[in-house]
């Protein structure tokens, strides 16, 4: 039983990270019907920016204030980067065929990935231990400080985002733009501003995800964005792409699924089963678990 609970904790930790990153994909897709391939690379970039901020700007001495500073400065940088990508790579193609935008997204991904490589070099960088290694043993189930932090902060951010989208005026505008951009425009919503908003929010959440990866796994490489991007993308699809609670659910489910397959069957098969799950979901429920049925206009 304690093994089961331990795997649950493992799965929830990694699942929270997937969920945070998946939100970036799903929000952009929801409004723009665009798969933002550059999102995974923004996540990787966030880990590198975090490392730079910590070692170069804040002096490399660990304290609570410094850790908070690393988070804030990194989030701002990555949000601005997301904003820039939207301006340079997506906005000029707003009225172009969708395929052009997808190609542009792939291009943006390459630019960021290679940009990281040029700035920091191709070798693995090591994130410093910003948090003390504290572990609690609760009846055989071991939870570490960093795991608690990842789960708690992810939960707070996700609930916050959900409330923001459901309860505020801007949130309503986001939902309206997701349903129909033209109609939203007719209602006096500035869709361009809404798109900028979702890029800022999505990139910020991705930045937190990237920092978590740095803090938890410590080894960061310029091309790791692809791997996390892929998992988060799968999570977004499982939950129903375009659906915000769906991305959260998809991320958590994917993390748990991965942990249990790796723990009970074999880690050899974890990836294979993940993608089998994706295929099954696409066959049985093409819109994902929480995905809405889209009425096709005839």
């Amino acid at each position: 039983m304690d093994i089961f609970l331990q795997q649950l904790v493992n799965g929830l930790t990694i699942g929270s990270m997937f969920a945070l990153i998946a939100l970036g994909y799903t929000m952009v897709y929801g409004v723009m019907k665009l798969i933002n391939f550059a999102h995974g690379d923004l996540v990787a970039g966030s880990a590198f920016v975090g490392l730079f901020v910590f070692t170069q700007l804040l002096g490399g001495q660990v304290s609570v204030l410094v850790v908070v500073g690393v988070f804030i400065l990194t989030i701002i940088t990555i949000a601005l980067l997301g904003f820039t990508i939207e301006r340079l790579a997506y906005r000029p193609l707003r009225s172009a065929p969708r395929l052009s935008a997808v190609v542009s997204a792939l291009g943006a991904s390459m630019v960021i990935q290679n940009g990281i490589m040029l700035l920091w070099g191709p070798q693995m960088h090591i994130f410093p231990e910003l948090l003390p290694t504290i572990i609690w043993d609760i009846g055989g189930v071991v939870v570490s400080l960093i795991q608690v932090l990842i789960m708690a902060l992810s939960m707070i951010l996700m609930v916050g985002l959900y409330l923001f989208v459901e309860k505020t005026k801007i949130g309503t505008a986001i939902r309206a733009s997701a349903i129909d951009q033209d109609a939203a425009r007719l209602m006096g919503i500035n869709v361009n501003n809404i798109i900028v908003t979702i890029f800022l929010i999505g990139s910020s959440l991705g930045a937190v995800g990237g920092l978590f990866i740095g803090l938890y796994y410590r080894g960061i490489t310029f091309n790791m964005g692809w791997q996390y991007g892929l998992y988060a993308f799968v999570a977004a699809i499982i939950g129903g792409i375009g659906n915000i609670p769906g991305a959260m659910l998809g991320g958590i489910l994917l993390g748990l699924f991965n942990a249990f397959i790796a723990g009970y069957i074999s880690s050899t098969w974890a990836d294979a089963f993940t993608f089998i799950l994706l295929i099954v979901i696409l066959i049985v429920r093409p819109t994902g678990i929480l995905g809405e049925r889209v009425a096709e206009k005839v």
Partner: protein
Amino acid sequence: MLQSKALVLSLVASVFLVTPVFAAETLKVGVQAPITGAYANEGQGIDQSVRLLAEQINAKGGVMGRQIEVISCDDEGTAMKAAICAKDLVNKGVSMVIGSYTSTCAEAAQTTYFRAGVLQTSDGTSDTLTEHGYWTFFRNSFPNSAEATFAADYMVKVKKYQRIAILSDFSSYADGLATAVADSVKGLGGNIVSREKVKAGSQNFTPVLTQIKSKNPDVIFYAGYYSDGGLIRSQQKGLGITADFIGGDANDNVDFLKLAGNAAAGTYIINVPSPEILPYDLAKDFLKAYKAKYNMMPPSIWTILNVDGMRAFIHAMETNKSFDTKKAADYLHTLKDYPGITGPISFAPDGNRVGSGYMAYEIQQDGSYKIVHK
């Protein structure tokens, strides 16, 4: 007008004067190494040290009058890129190739070098590398089977572990080492409670470690590379698993310490001696030159082993007074005790380096190594 004519003439003249220098024949040495990717610091180490050695030889007049020209190819640590590199280096006319770091990449490129008659030396420890019967291949390290015997003896006889867990990734080196260790442990009557595999680079090892924890081992032997080993050690501690951790040779890298962080101290690593503790003058001189040129120490012993492979190749050519690779290989297959940076170099007829000098180290609080068994 006259001036411009003179300028043209002088330009033409300079081209003619300079060309012969470019056309002088060089000895082309290929480097196939993971210069980018997860094992980048090892790849860069090999590339840098080969260039350093070439520089040293060139300064002394080259090899029988020919300057060494180093051509590098980045295999990124993947078999696919390794095969491309092999073709590329052969097309560029290299007569020897140094590398690659991983057994997988060395093996993927082997056949191409063999067919082209290009000498190849790699630190890859996978036993299969020397099992193809290619006369072109020379291993500059010692094979997995030798390490497995040492590791099994250390775990079963010296440390007297009762419950041994063995973990590896899927690469040709790691899986081969783990299997060899498992066989040797069984041969000594040891008890293996778990034999698991992880995907290199997947970063999240907690599910596998939790699985291993349920088997309650008193030691985890990890065969695989430092980029995963450091994380596994760190996550092992994070899960409160108190078992000892023994890393196979490829965990011997400065990045292992950084990745494992606080969990590094108390870890055991089994490998041939690390560069700093090599007693030979050749080693001290080379490390000094490396430090002077690159302002850092080589990332691990693997860098230096590859340099020794190259030194043996050049020694063979100079002894034969010929650049013929077949003749050099014939000479190398009977080479005995040629002084190397990593100790005397002798090759067996199958291209294996003869000898074995494995040691067990314990990592100390300050990150230094302490020899605990040899």
